[in-house]
C-alpha cells in the first residue's frame, strides 16, 4: 500500500472516529426520547461532507487539528444538542407571570412573617435565651422552608404546564370587564369606604371584647395566662385609635369633596400609632420582668412546665410589635411621599391656572 493511500485511509479513519466521538457527545445531551438517530446520521453526513470539501480545497487530507477546527466551528456538543433537541421549558410564558406572583406572595408575605413572628420566638424559647443560636436556627429553618416552598410551587406549576390545564383559563377573559384606567387622583370609592368601616367596626368590637374574652387572642392559653399592667395601660389608647380609624371612612363618605383627607388621614393615623408604640417600647424598656405582656395565672404560677408557654407568647407579642413598628414606619414614609406629591401637583396646577389668568 502506497504512503498516500495509507495516509488517506488513516485520515478517513481518524475523521470517522472524531465525528463519531462528536456525535456521541451531542447524543449525550439530547433527551432520551429525542435521541433522533436520523438527525444524528444527517449531522454526521454533513460533517463528513464538510471535511471532504475542505480536503478538496486544500489538496491534502486533513490532520486532526484541522478536523477539530471544523467541529469547533460547528459548536460545542451541548450547544448543538440544545439547538437540535426539542424546545423545552418547565413553566411556559403563559403561566410564568402567575407562577412568579405566587412565589413572591408565598415566600415574602407568608413564610417570612411566619418564621419571624412564630418560629423565631419558639426557637428562642427552646434555646434557653441564647439569641445567637436562636437567630441562626431560625435563619436555617427559614432557608429550608423557602427552598421547600419554592420547590413545591414550581412542581405544581410544572404539572399544570404539562397537563395544559391553563389553556381554558387563557380563553375566558372579557375586555369589557377589565378594571378602569387608574389616574393620579382617584375619587374615594364609597364601596371601599363602607368595607373599611365594616372591618374597622369588627376590629373595634374584637378589641372591646378582649378583656372579657381573652380567648379571642390567646386561644386555649387564655386559661393559663393573663395580661400584665403594661397591656392594660395601653389598652385604652389602642381602643381610641381604633375609634379614630372607624371614623375615617365615615368622614370620607360624608365629605367626598375633602380630597386631601384620604391622603392625610392615614399619615396622621400612622403617626399616632408610632407615638403610641414608642411609648409602649419605652415602658417596656423600664419593665424589669421577663414577661412584660402576659404572665401565668395565679393557679399555675409555680408550674415550671408553663414557663416556656409564657415565654413564647411574650416573645411573639414583642416580635409582632417590632414588625408593626417597622411596617408603620415604611407605611408612613410612603404615605408622606404620596401626600407631598399630591400637594405639589395641586400647587403646580394652581400656579399654571394663575399664569394663564395673568396672560
Amino acid at each position, binding site marked *: 500500500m502506497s504512503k498516500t493511500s495509507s495516509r488517506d485511509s488513516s485520515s478517513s479513519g481518524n475523521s470517522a472516529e472524531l465525528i463519531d466521538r462528536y456525535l456521541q457527545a451531542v447524543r449525550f445531551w439530547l433527551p432520551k426520547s429525542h435521541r433522533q438517530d436520523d438527525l444524528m446520521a*444527517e449531522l454526521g453526513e*454533513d460533517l*463528513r461532507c464538510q471535511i471532504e470539501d475542505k480536503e478538496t480545497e486544500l489538496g491534502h487530507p486533513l490532520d486532526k487539528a484541522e478536523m477539530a477546527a471544523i467541529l469547533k466551528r460547528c459548536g460545542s456538543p451541548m450547544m448543538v444538542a440544545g439547538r437540535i433537541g426539542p424546545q423545552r421549558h418547565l413553566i411556559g410564558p403563559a403561566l410564568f407571570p402567575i407562577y412568579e406572583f405566587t412565589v413572591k406572595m408565598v415566600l415574602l408575605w407568608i413564610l417570612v412573617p411566619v418564621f419571624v413572628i412564630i418560629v423565631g420566638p419558639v426557637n428562642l424559647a427552646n434555646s434557653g435565651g441564647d439569641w445567637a443560636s436562636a437567630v441562626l436556627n431560625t435563619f436555617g429553618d427559614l432557608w429550608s422552608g423557602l427552598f421547600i416552598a419554592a420547590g413545591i410551587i414550581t412542581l405544581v406549576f410544572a404539572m399544570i404546564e404539562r397537563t395544559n390545564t391553563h389553556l381554558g383559563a387563557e380563553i375566558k377573559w372579557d375586555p369589557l370587564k377589565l378594571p378602569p384606567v387608574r389616574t393620579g387622583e382617584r375619587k374615594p370609592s364609597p364601596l371601599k369606604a363602607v368595607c373599611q368601616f365594616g372591618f374597622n367596626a369588627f376590629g373595634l368590637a374584637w378589641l372591646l371584647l378582649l378583656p372579657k374574652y381573652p380567648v379571642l387572642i390567646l386561644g386555649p392559653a387564655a386559661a393559663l395566662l393573663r395580661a400584665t399592667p403594661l397591656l392594660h395601660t395601653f389598652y385604652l389608647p389602642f381602643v381610641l385609635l381604633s375609634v379614630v380609624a372607624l371614623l375615617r371612612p365615615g368622614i370620607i363618605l360624608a365629605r367626598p369633596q375633602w380630597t386631601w383627607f384620604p391622603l392625610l388621614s392615614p399619615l396622621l393615623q400612622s403617626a399616632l400609632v408610632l407615638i403610641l408604640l414608642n411609648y409602649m417600647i419605652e415602658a417596656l424598656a423600664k419593665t424589669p420582668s421577663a414577661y412584660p405582656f402576659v404572665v401565668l395565672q395565679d393557679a399555675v404560677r409555680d408550674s415550671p412546665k408553663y414557663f416556656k408557654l409564657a415565654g413564647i407568647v411574650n416573645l411573639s407579642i414583642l416580635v409582632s410589635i417590632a414588625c408593626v413598628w417597622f411596617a408603620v414606619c415604611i407605611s408612613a414614609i410612603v404615605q408622606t411621599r404620596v401626600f407631598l406629591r399630591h400637594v405639589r401637583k395641586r400647587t403646580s396646577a394652581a400656579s399654571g391656572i394663575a399664569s394663564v389668568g395673568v396672560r
Partner: protein
Amino acid sequence: MWYIVYVAYYMATGTASSEVFENLRMELRRGCLVVAVLAQLRCEQYGYTLRKALADDGLAIDEGTLYPLLRRLETQGLLVSQWREEDKRNKRFYRLSAEGELILKQLLAEWESINASLNKILQEA
C-alpha cells in the same frame, strides 16, 4: 485616566449597539429562512448541498438550525424525504411536496406584498 474612561465607555456602548444589531439581524434572517429553504428545495437536495447552496446565495445557515427546520417542515407536510445511497454513503434527500409547493407560492406572494409595503414606507420616510 479620563482617556481610559472615555475609551471604555465608547467600547461598552459600541459593543452594546453591535450586539443589538446582531440580534436584530439574526431575527430578520430567521424570518426569511423558511422561504429560502422551501425555494431551494424546488430541486431535490440533501442537507449539506442545501446548506452550501444557501450559503453561496448569501444565506449561511448552521447545521443546528437547518436540520431541525427540515424536520419541522417535513412534519408539517411541506417536504418529503428519502434515504438513498450516494457515493457509498447514505444521504437523506429532500424535496417539496405538493402542499409545500402551494405554501411556497403563497409565501412568495406574501413576501412580495411585504416588500412592496416596506418600499412604500421607505419612500414615504
